[in-house]
């Protein structure tokens, strides 16, 4: 969500007037978390700052939310940071990459999220890299974590994020000649209306619904 919303936001464009809940939906904060982060997160940040002199330039935000540490990284620095995290901070496993599409965030519509795991230290860290819809390129981390090969192919398939330097970036789940990237928010869910005994149930994406 890009901004705070108040009041009758349950209903939209329909005759539903019962949506008043008096609720306030708070937007996720765009700022960094202040130190101390708590737990081992301070150690991770300290170690990374020591091992990587360009820390303040490459890492735009450090967010600690719900007991999880997220490092927001400039996409041009991703592979450098990834290598340091693997070699110096012992994050030897990358558990994949998950895409998220935020159409409202101008210039950062596509986000790639990398959960990292250090088995040596029993720690987890999340990397987040954002890129624009107009330039959907993010450097590939397959050379750092070979296991990300299929995960990056999936994220390319589903979101159209092009991972530069990937050894063979092709579709993996959808057919090769498929048009579009299904997990993007502007891609329709599809489905058809079903008629039963005179009543019609619209497809899930066309039903009256609450946001």
């Amino acid at each position, binding site marked *: *969500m890009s901004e705070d919303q108040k009041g009758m936001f*349950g209903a939209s464009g329909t005759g539903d007037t*019962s*949506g008043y809940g008096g*609720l306030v*939906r*708070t*937007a*996720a904060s765009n700022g960094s978390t202040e130190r101390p982060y708590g737990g081992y997160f301070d150690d991770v940040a300290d170690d990374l700052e020591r091992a990587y002199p360009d820390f303040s330039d490459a890492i735009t935000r450090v967010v600690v*939310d*719900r*007991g*999880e540490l*997220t490092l927001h990284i400039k996409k041009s620095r991703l592979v450098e940071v990834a290598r340091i995290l693997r070699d110096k901070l012992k994050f*030897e*496993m*990358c*558990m*994949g990459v*998950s*895409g*998220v*599409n935020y159409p409202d965030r101008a210039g950062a519509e596509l986000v790639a*999220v990398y*959960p990292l*795991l250090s*088995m040596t230290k*029993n720690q*987890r860290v*999340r990397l987040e890299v954002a890129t624009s819809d107009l330039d959907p390129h993010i450097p590939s981390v397959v050379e750092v*974590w*070979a*296991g*990300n*090969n*299929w*995960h990056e192919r*999936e994220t390319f398939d*589903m979101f159209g994020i092009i991972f530069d330097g990937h050894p063979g970036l092709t*579709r*993996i*789940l*959808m*057919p090769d000649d498929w048009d579009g990237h*299904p*997990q993007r928010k502007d*891609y329709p*869910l599809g489905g058809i209306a079903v008629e039963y005994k005179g009543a019609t149930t619209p497809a*899930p*994406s066309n039903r009256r*619904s*609450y*946001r």
Partner: protein
Amino acid sequence: MTTFDPKLDPYASSRETTEGTVFSVTGGDWDSLVSEIGESKEERIIVNMGPQHPSTHGVLRLVLELEGETVTEVRTGIGYLHTGIEKNIEYRNWTQAVTFVTRMDYLAPIFNETAYCLAVEKLLGITNDIPERASVIRVLMMELNRISSHMVALGTGALELGAMGPMFFAFRDREIVLDTFEEITGLRMNMAYVRPGGVSQDLPAGMTTKLRGVVKTLRKNFEDNAKLLIGNTIWMKRTEGIGYLDLAGCTTLGITGPVLRSAGLPWDLRKMQPYCGYENYEFDVITADTADVYGRFLVRMAELEQSLRIIEQAIDKLDKLEGQPVMVADKKIAWPAQLALGADGLGNSLDHIREIMGSSMESLIHHFKLVTEGFRVPAGQVYATVESPRGELAAHVVSDGGTRPYRVHFREPSFNNLQSTSAMSEGGMVADIIGAVASIDPVMGGVDR
């Protein structure tokens, strides 16, 4: 190349009969393929295996490049079972999503549900409010599910390598577990039993006594397969030294679960990063040091006993927690689970219907709002992990503060581990691919989602 005549199939000559056209299928282009290979000095051949092949564990396609009987290259084709569950969830409310995720890895439905629910609970900030009885039931169900999943891995794995007996024993035991599931949840698989906030309903009366009997039967039954396979010369010849993937290979490829443990690393999220109160159970993490198919088989066999140990401890806990709630106290989150198991399966609780229809207008309004709208989850993202029978299963769940998930991504261990097929099989014999794939134990529903 001649022009294509639809009536004249180049691979099947036809003749007209009184019953219609009859085609005789001949070798197709096989003759020309053989003559081409005959001219070449290499004995290189490309074989397409699957997606409809009984030994590929579902709709998995392998493109093999063979040099004689030696495999030089394996390429894996997936996506035949892609169902768009992650996309569909974005159009359902937070509770309905459980019904979808349970269908991902269909051999381990409870694990999918638990990973998703742990993520939603983390987003809601109610992780510590989950009643203890609910967590114990989740552990009980997960461990029963681990047994039923390992039974398929062992049974079909053995069947694919030509051993029929283990399959019968494994499916006999799996049936016992599925019957237990049916008694508890109303369904044998895809139960949608674990819900955000707890579980959909309490165990039926007298269940713990029955469960003790189940544990006893299973423990005795597991001996059959152990006697049949452990140390069996034929079985060991097909599995020892096959599908080798050492610890470095596992780490590089992000492999977790029995495959990683067969390489000697005792990495189990139940011990390392406990969830659902796993820190309160006594069990061992099983490892092997052979890093091959036989090692993975031994790890799975030994994990069965560890699961039984956890189940026994869970039953003892359940006896002590008799009558405690199995859902969070917050009715806004708990409603969709106010169901009851009737003679015809899971349905609305009659007490609840009586209240909303007969006695309380406010209850009816709340019921309506909660059913049509669901609950809101504060904005943010979390990553919740569980140790599934195949490794680290994780749900990356993003909320924008609405009544529906903004994005749900499952980090499926099957999907990730299947990448190691090439590393395990290249350079080996073609028949050993089957053993290697079976030892990864991929479930295509989970791989393709």
